[in-house]
């Protein structure tokens, strides 16, 4: 390194990425969920020909549109942020990571964005089945889009389908099938899209409850509620099962992530090992200051067995020691090979190649951030200092995971009761349930955010698991650059959320209107709509 890595810049880059990704991810799950919900109602419209289903499609479609716009806008940031803020990551991993991202654009995003215009504007230019087909294409497109993004994300967590190439000093792609069928990516995709369906279902159910509480649009709301509740039960059960499967995979591929998620410092003793309901992990002291758990269930949950011990973080750390030392040898040989291009240096590198990432990890603790300059006396000390770096932040990972799980369970409860009551046609008699459903709208959004935090904070300290550490991945910006962009993003995104919430509340309050977007009847309906709007706002205050 000719210029020392500035940890403040790295932290600010991470903060900015988390901010923009979490913000983007507030809009994605609802898009994923609502598209299929829209397709389902419109199918009902085409099959039965009942006008109410068309109104439902158009009304929920409008809310979908408000949400979709920001989803697209903030997604743009993500596509460019790898280049603007993570130059080393993009150069090192772009050969593998760029491919799914580009395919996403070509295969999914183009389709989704082109047809979404037709979905909104094409009602009176297309036959009913043709419009339905367009809606399905949008739903398919947005879910395909999620698939490719998660294939890219999967590669960061489990870099299958590529290898490190010493001649170009970067990861090189060699197997597209392995990349696509990366177990982590596949498990994440189904977990994420079902979580999206959950979010969509809760959104529809909550807003319908709002109307039922006010005794407005009753038939419309009861219909929407029933469909959403049933959809929600299925989606939540699926998200839970598939999430469990994802955890099972992490246990094999990323033991540090699992240990941090479950707060396991010392290797467990099955079968007694408890699943922690709550704990206070202390990262500095490497222990849980306090913990309560349910005995006997950790091992079956994580390992799907009764006898496998879960490796604790202390043991994982100790096991990393030799890998760090071997990794330092790998980096040293690689650097020599870059200058000499001698076979001998290459062979020496090959002998330590599998630990290369651990050598990079030691850079922070090497004199002048140069691992080739570490003397034999300094070596044990550098290794010792690097060992704790292999762990993610346990407090964050542990709690993010728990919050996600708790919200998931709560949502299942609300959906299940909702479905039961709705199918018995007793919604309006159970106002407490309606109130509960309405206030539960934000929860699946939060669960999705905490899910992202669990997955990505748990991946640390790597951007490419066991190959490239996060602190090496960032662009070499100055603090000034980062402050400039962060202030900009914060201002812009705050404005967006204010505008989005204003419009969402406005149109949700306004409610569904019998409406023909381009017809002559427009003005009449709009004035009715405005009147309802006034009365609705009046009741609200």
């Amino acid at each position, binding site marked *: 390194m*000719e*210029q020392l890595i500035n940890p403040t810049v790295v932290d600010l880059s991470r903060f900015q990425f988390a901010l923009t990704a979490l913000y983007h991810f507030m809009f994605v799950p609802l898009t994923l969920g609502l598209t299929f919900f829209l397709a389902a109602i419109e199918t009902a419209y085409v099959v039965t020909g009942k006008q109410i289903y068309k109104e439902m499609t158009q009304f929920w479609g409008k809310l979908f*549109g408000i949400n979709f*716009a*920001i989803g*697209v*806008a*903030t*997604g*743009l*940031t993500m596509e*460019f942020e*790898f*280049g*603007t803020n993570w*130059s*080393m990551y*993009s*150069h*090192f*991993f*772009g*050969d593998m990571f*760029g*491919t799914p*991202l*580009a*395919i*996403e*654009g*070509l*295969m999914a*995003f*183009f389709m989704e*964005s*082109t047809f*979404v*215009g037709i979905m909104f*504007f*094409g009602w009176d230019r*297309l036959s009913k089945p043709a419009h339905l087909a367009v809606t399905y294409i949008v739903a398919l497109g947005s879910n395909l889009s999620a698939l490719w993004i998660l294939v890219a994300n999967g590669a960061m967590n489990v870099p299958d389908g590529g290898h490190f190439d010493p*001649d*170009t*000093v*970067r990861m090189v*792609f060699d197997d597209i099938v392995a990349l696509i069928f990366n177990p982590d990516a596949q498990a994440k995709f189904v977990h994420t899209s079902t979580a999206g369906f959950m979010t969509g279902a809760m959104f529809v159910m909550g807003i319908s409850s709002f109307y039922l509480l006010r005794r407005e649009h009753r038939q419309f709301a009861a219909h929407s509620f029933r469909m959403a509740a049933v959809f929600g039960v299925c989606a939540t059960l699926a998200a839970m099962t598939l999430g469990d499967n994802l955890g099972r995979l992490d246990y094999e591929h990323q033991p540090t992530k699992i240990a941090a998620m479950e707060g396991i410092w010392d290797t467990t003793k099955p079968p007694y090992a408890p699943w922690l309901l709550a704990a206070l992990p202390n990262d500095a002291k490497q222990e849980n200051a306090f913990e309560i758990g349910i005995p006997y269930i950790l091992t079956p949950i994580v390992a799907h067995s009764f006898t496998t011990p879960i490796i604790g973080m202390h043991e994982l750390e100790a096991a990393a020691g030799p890998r760090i030392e071997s990794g330092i040898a790998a980096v040293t040989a690689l*650097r020599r090979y*870059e200058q000499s291009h001698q076979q001998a240096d290459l062979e020496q590198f090959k002998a330590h190649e599998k630990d290369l990432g651990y050598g990079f990890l030691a850079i922070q603790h090497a004199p002048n951030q140069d691992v080739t300059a570490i003397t034999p006396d300094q070596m044990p000390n550098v290794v010792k200092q690097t060992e704790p770096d292999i762990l993610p932040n346990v407090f964050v990972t542990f709690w993010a995971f728990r919050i996600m799980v708790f919200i998931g369970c709560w949502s299942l409860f609300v959906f299940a009761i909702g479905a039961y009551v709705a199918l018995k046609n007793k919604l309006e008699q159970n106002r407490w349930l309606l109130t509960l459903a309405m206030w539960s709208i934000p929860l699946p959004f939060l669960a999705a955010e905490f899910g992202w935090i669990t997955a990505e904070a748990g991946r640390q300290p790597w951007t490419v698991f066991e190959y490239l550490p996060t602190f*090496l991945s960032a*662009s*070499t*910006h100055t603090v000034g650059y980062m402050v*400039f*962009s962060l202030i900009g993003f914060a201002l812009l995104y705050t404005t967006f959320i204010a505008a989005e919430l204003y419009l969402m509340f*406005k*149109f949700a309050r306004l409610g569904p209107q019998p*409406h023909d*977007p381009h017809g002559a009847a427009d*003005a009449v309906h*709009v004035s009715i709509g405005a009147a309802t709007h006034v009365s609705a706002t009046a009741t609200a205050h």
Partner: protein
Amino acid sequence: MDLYTILKIVWAGLLCVLFIGLGLFVGMDMGVGTLLRFVGKTDGERRAALNIIGPHWDGNQVWFILGGGAIFAAFPTLYATSFSVFYVVMILLLFSMILRPVAFEYRSKAESTRWRESWDWTFLISGFLPMFVYGAAFGNVLEGVGFHFDWMGQYYQDSSFWSYLINPFAILCGLMSVALSIFQGGVMLMMRGEDPIYTRAKNCAQWGAIIAAVLFIIGGVWVRTLRGYVLDSGNPGMASVPMTGQHVTREVGAWMHNYAAHPILWIFPLLGIVSMFVGAALARGNSPHVAWWFGALAWIGTIGTVGASMFPFFMPSTTNPDQSMTIWNSCSSEYTLLCMLIVALIFVPIILWYTSWCYYLMGGKVKAPSITDSHSY
């Protein structure tokens, strides 16, 4: 020529196609955004103008995203380095690009004049700025940028961002790209708009094309005086590493070498200039549909001119010319380029097919929607 070299050249060509598509389609929407306040004096007129591109802007914007994705996949080192080196303008570009979708979707969903006025200003800024940055980026790479790499391939910036922000040649290129976008946007407004939008758009489109042509010619003369770059030694089939393996020298007028060696390349600047003037004449003669296609030819001419003059350079370095990024040293591996080529060959025709179907479906003149109609833009 080995397969790897062929793939590199094919991808550099595809990148040019993407740049042309981006300039044309995104530029058209940006032009409408820039012109919005001028072609539409009343709210109804502005809404009519917005609804002309209403069904298409979202799909068009994907050209921009696809451009980013394709550079990432095919030229990861170029993607990583150029986006980081141009950080300040890239962030400004991003801000204006992310404001646009929101402006479209939100502008007409509330009735207050202040709300709509604010979004109209957003359209102006987010139409002008990205096209300006887009053109200025080409100007900057023609002049070269200060950066170098360390042994692992991490870049380091060697010149302050002011040097590429306040740079006369880059400003000229930026303005030219804005002028072309105004032409394309104006022509689109003529195609689907009615009076008074039609007449105002016609005026803007003519001037846009003429100004673009004049700036293009000035730029062409200017390039002869720039210190260009010459690749003295470097193997096109080389492993893609920007750190070592090339030798580059600088020379005044080097950007004209390719034209001297292959006079056929003059077809690009000629096509550019002729298309811009013919486009202006056609707009004047009330033939916006034909003029639109000449706008497309103008973009082919412009991007083609830059490509022909810089080949094989992407982004030359002023501080360490040997580490300049070229088609040969900043691309993906052979496997990735091949995979991506197959994917592109399958999906690009499909995209072109459904995009043109959408234009066909949504064709026809657009009237101003009623003020409270919240389904239209």
